C-alpha cells in the first residue's frame, strides 16, 4: 500500500487499515438542537463496535449541530470521529479554519464531500457556496497536511494532522466514469474511500474489479457502504426517491417475502451477507455501516457480522 | 336555421383564434366588457395546426391576469366547435350569458376613468 509511507495522522482508523485488518466504521447524525445527551446516547451504541464514526455535516442540507462540535463530543466520550465536511456551506477560508480547529482539538479523520444540494433541505433558498469541489477539498487538506501550506501557498505554523477520506458512488451514472473519478480523488490525495450504500452487488463487484485493474485499490483503502433496510417502504423509497441509489428488485422482493415483524431482521441478514462477501473481496478493506437513525442496532449488527471485537492500539 | 342567441353579445371576427391577442382581451375588460369568450375550431382541426390551442393558452393567461388585477378570472372562457354547428354556437352564447349574469357586471364599470390625482 502506498498509503503506508504517508504522514501518520495518529488516526485509529488509519492504524486499523494499515495493520491490514478489516475496518468497520459507523455513522452518527448530530441533533437538530443543542442536546448533548442525544449525541452521547447514540455514541453509546457505537462505542467499541466501530473504529471511527462519521459525523454528518448538515446532512441532506438540513441544519444540525455543527459536525466538528458533535465530533468533539464524541472524542470526549472516547470514540474517534470521522469529521465530514461538505463544500456546500463553507468557502475556502471557513474550510481551512475548521480543518485547523478540528485538528487542534483532536479530530484525525475527515471525509471530503460535495454535499447534497441545498434545494433538498430545510433552507432551500440558501446560497450554495461550492467555492471548491470535493476533489479540490481533498487536494487542499493534503497540501495543508503534507506540505504545511494553505491553499494560497502561505506557510501553516503547525500543520493539521488528518487521515483524508473521500466518497465514491459506483452506482451513479455514467458508470464507466466512476472509476476515473475515483482515480482523480486518489490522485488528489484521498487515503480512504467510503462508498454510497451498496445494494446492487453485481454492479459493485464490477466497479471493484475495474478499480483493481487500474491499480487503484493498491493506492487507497476502500470501505464498502452498507445500510440495512428497516422496512419494505424504506427500500422502495431508496429505490425511487434517492438520486444515485441503485436498489434491485430482488432486495425488495426478499424483504416482502418474510413476515412483517421479521422484515427488519431480514434487512440485517442481507447486510451481514454483504459484509461476509466484502471481507473476502479483493480491493475492499472494510465496511462503512450507515445505520441511519438505527444506531441502537449497531451492536447487534456488528455481532452478527462477526466484526467484533474491534482492534485496540495502545 | 334562424337560431336565436342573446343580443348582448358583440362578435369580433378574426381569421383564426390564434390571432386573438392578450391585449385584445385585456382591453375589452378595461373598456367595461362583463365577459369575453373565444370560440375556436375543434381542437385538432385548426387550419394553422395549433391556433386554437394557442388561443386556449392565452385565455388561461388572461384568466390569471384578471385575477391579479382583482377581477373574476372566470369572466373569460374558451369554447370550441366546428363551423357547421350553429345550434352549439347559440348554446354556448346562452351558456356564457347566463354565466356572466350570475357573476354580475364587470366591477370596473362602476369606476369610471378619471384623471389621476396629482403627485
Amino acid at each position, binding site marked *: 500500500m502506498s498509503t503506508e509511507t504517508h504522514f501518520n495522522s495518529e488516526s485509529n482508523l488509519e492504524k486499523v487499515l494499515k495493520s491490514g485488518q478489516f475496518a468497520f466504521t459507523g455513522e452518527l447524525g448530530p441533533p437538530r438542537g443543542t442536546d448533548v445527551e442525544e449525541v452521547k446516547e447514540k455514541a453509546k451504541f457505537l462505542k467499541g463496535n466501530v473504529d471511527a464514526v462519521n459525523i454528518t455535516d448538515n446532512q441532506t442540507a438540513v441544519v444540525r449541530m455543527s459536525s466538528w462540535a458533535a465530533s468533539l463530543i464524541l472524542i470526549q466520550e472516547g470514540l474517534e470521529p470521522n469529521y465530514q465536511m461538505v463544500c456546500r456551506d463553507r468557502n475556502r477560508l471557513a474550510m481551512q479554519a475548521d480543518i485547523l480547529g478540528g485538528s487542534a482539538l483532536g479530530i484525525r479523520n475527515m471525509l471530503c464531500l460535495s454535499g*447534497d444540494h441545498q434545494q433538498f433541505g430545510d433552507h432551500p433558498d440558501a446560497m450554495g457556496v461550492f467555492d471548491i*469541489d*470535493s476533489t479540490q477539498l481533498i487536494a487542499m487538506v493534503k497540501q495543508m497536511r503534507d506540505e504545511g501550506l494553505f491553499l494560497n501557498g502561505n506557510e501553516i505554523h503547525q500543520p493539521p494532522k488528518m487521515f483524508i477520506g473521500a466518497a465514491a458512488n459506483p452506482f451513479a451514472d455514467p458508470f464507466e466514469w466512476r472509476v476515473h473519478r475515483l482515480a482523480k480523488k486518489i490522485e488528489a490525495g484521498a487515503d480512504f474511500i467510503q462508498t454510497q450504500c451498496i445494494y446492487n452487488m453485481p454492479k459493485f463487484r464490477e466497479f471493484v474489479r475495474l478499480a483493481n485493474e487500474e491499480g487503484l485499490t493498491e493506492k487507497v483503502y476502500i470501505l464498502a457502504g452498507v445500510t440495512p433496510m428497516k422496512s419494505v417502504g424504506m427500500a422502495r423509497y431508496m429505490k425511487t426517491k434517492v438520486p444515485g441509489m441503485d436498489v434491485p428488485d430482488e432486495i425488495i422482493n426478499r424483504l416482502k417475502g418474510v413476515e412483517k415483524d421479521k422484515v427488519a431482521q431480514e434487512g440485517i441478514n442481507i447486510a451481514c451477507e454483504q459484509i461476509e462477501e466484502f471481507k473476502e473481496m479483493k480491493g475492499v478493506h472494510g465496511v462503512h455501516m450507515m445505520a441511519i437513525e438505527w444506531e441502537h442496532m449497531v451492536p447487534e449488527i456488528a455481532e452478527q457480522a462477526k466484526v467484533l471485537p474491534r482492534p485496540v492500539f495502545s | 336555421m334562424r337560431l336565436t342567441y342573446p343580443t348582448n353579445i358583440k362578435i369580433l371576427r378574426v381569421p383564426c383564434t390564434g390571432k386573438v391577442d392578450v391585449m385584445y382581451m385585456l382591453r375589452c375588460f*378595461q373598456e367595461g366588457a362583463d365577459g369575453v369568450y373565444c370560440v375556436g375550431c375543434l381542437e385538432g382541426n385548426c387550419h394553422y395546426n395549433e391556433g386554437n390551442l394557442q388561443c386556449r393558452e392565452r385565455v388561461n393567461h388572461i384568466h390569471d391576469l384578471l385575477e391579479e*388585477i382583482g377581477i373574476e378570472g372566470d369572466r373569460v372562457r374558451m369554447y370550441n366547435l366546428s363551423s357547421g354547428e350553429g345550434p352549439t354556437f347559440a348554446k354556448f352564447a346562452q351558456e356564457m350569458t347566463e354565466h356572466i349574469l350570475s357573476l354580475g357586471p364587470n366591477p*370596473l364599470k362602476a369606476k369610471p376613468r378619471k384623471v389621476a390625482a396629482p*403627485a
Partner: protein
Amino acid sequence: MIVAQRKPFAEIKEMLQGYNKVLNVGCGTCVSVCLTGGEKEVAVLNTELEMARRLDDDPIDIQGHTIERQCDREYLAELDSIIEEGKFDALMSMACGVGIQFLAERYPLIPTFPAVDTSGLAVNQTVGWYEERCRSCSQCVLGFTGGICPITMCAKRLLNGPCGGTNKGSCEISNDQPCAWFRIWERLSGQGRLDSIKKINTTRGWKDQAPRNLMQPGYKKPEKMVK
C-alpha cells in the same frame, strides 16, 4: 442574450403605491426577444396597472414608451423630452438590470422601479423557452468541458464532476435538469477527448466577486462624461 422575467404583479403594484403619474419604459432588444419587456409587454402591464388602480379607487396615469436599448445613452436620449414634458413622479423599467440602471442614472431625481427580474444569459430554445447558458464568470472553462458550462449548468458548480447525485443523466435537483457533467462526459467521449477531464481541475479564483470593468486596449476613459 439577456433574459428576464416579469415580476409578480402584486410586487409591481406595491412598488408603485403612492405614485400617480408613471412612465413605463420598455427595451427593444434582449427583453423584447424573450417576450418580457418590449412594447407589447409594456402595454399589457400598463393596462393591468390602470385597471387594478381604478378598482382600488386610486387611479394612475401610466404611459409607456419603448426605446431600442436602455443600455445605450444614444437611445436613452430620446426620452429626455418625453420625461421633461410628462412631469412623471416615477419611472418604471422593463429592461434588464443593466438597462434600468442606466435609465435611473440619467434621471437621478425621479424614482425608478424595476418591473422585471433579470435571470441571466440564455439561448432561445423555441419561442417562449429560454435556457441559461452562461454565468459570465470571467474565466471560461468551455475549452476543456466540451463546450458545456458546468458553472452554469451544474447546480454545484463542480469542476470535477459528476457528483454522486447524477440520476439517469439528470441532476439530483430535478429530473428536468440535465446533469452538466453527464453531458460533458458524453460529448468528450464522442470526441475521444476524455483525457481533458481525467486530470484534476484545480481550485480556481472567482473573478466575479467584485464589479468588473472592461477597458479595451487602445481606448481610455474620457476625461469628462458627456450625457
